[in-house]
């Protein structure tokens, strides 16, 4: 039996148990999908209190509408779709700009870090430190991307989802997902390079 099939069987069992009244099975569903929901919510929403409310809303909605799940996709994908829609709704309601910007203070902090890390004579310890700093700089640069871009990047590179699965979560055609991802990666690479060049001058 293929992995996908096994996954569906397990999804079906869990859904049937929940619909049969076993609410504890829903806890298992939550544990299985919480990581994906966290990635989406953290990438799209900045405010911690709102994240907490949204995450709860996502699962309450999933619970209420579980009988509508038709097993056409993985359960995690369906819940991811609810999370993505909830976050989009939140951004629209709050009239938040889709492209977040970092403050000057954040920018200065990043540049200070770069001052420290760009050194041609790095020892091993320093090199390890450099990697850690690079990781922090990258985190800042990812955060600067628009919520949709950073979510796509995370779903593809961190969650290792396929273009099809990302398309199902975001309800975007696969071609659009590919195109957005390509632009997001280029933007991220260019922004990182610009920072290094700026620093080198």
């Amino acid at each position: 039996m293929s992995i996908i099939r096994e996954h569906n069987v397990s999804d079906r069992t869990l859904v049937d148990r929940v619909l049969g009244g076993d609410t504890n099975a829903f806890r298992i569903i939550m544990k299985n999908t919480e990581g994906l929901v966290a990635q989406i919510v953290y990438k799209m929403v900045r405010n911690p209190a709102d994240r907490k409310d949204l995450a709860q809303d996502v699962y309450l909605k999933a619970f209420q509408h579980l009988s509508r799940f038709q097993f056409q996709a993985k359960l995690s994908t369906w819940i991811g779709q609810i999370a993505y829609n909830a976050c989009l709704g939140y951004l629209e309601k709050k009239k938040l700009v889709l492209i977040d910007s970092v403050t000057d203070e954040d920018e200065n902090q990043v540049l200070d870090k770069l001052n420290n890390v760009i050194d041609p004579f790095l020892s091993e310890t320093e090199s390890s430190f450099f990697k850690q700093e690079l990781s922090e700089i990258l985190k800042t640069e990812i955060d600067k991307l628009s919520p949709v871009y950073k979510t796509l990047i995370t779903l593809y590179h961190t969650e290792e989802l396929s273009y099809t699965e990302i398309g199902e979560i975001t309800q975007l055609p696969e071609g659009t997902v590919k195109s957005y991802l390509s632009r997001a990666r280029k933007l991220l690479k260019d922004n990182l390079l610009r920072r290094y060049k700026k620093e080198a001058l």
Partner: protein
Amino acid sequence: MKNRHLTDEEIQQYVLDWGTCNKELLAHISQCEHCQQQAAQYQLLFASIEKQEKATFDFELADLVMEQITQPAPVPDNRAVVYAMLAIVAAMVGVMAYLFGNSTASLFAFMQPLLIGLLIVTAFGLVGFLGLDMYQKYKTQMKALNFS
């Protein structure tokens, strides 16, 4: 071999899944330092993204949700009812066709083609209107549920 440098999309494709790249692209990148450098930058970027710490909730989400979950109302399995209704409709159509099949055929034989056309257009128009109305209601409900 390609004379121009590869696009970002092509370089990303090369880094992520070089097996799907065409020979021309592979031949270019094997001899072009500029494109190799671009590929190396993307490679470093992707590796760094993958190493990024995964976001996790700093609260017990499951406990919070389970507190609010009440026993779901049993979902009536209405599939049996739907199938029964479909069977009844099919049976009725069958009986009607058996009893009045010949009469219906002769009725259409005597009708003017213009009238038949008018009936077909009206029927399609009605179905289209009802379908559109149903779709709009569906969209409104989905939006209210925040599913769209």
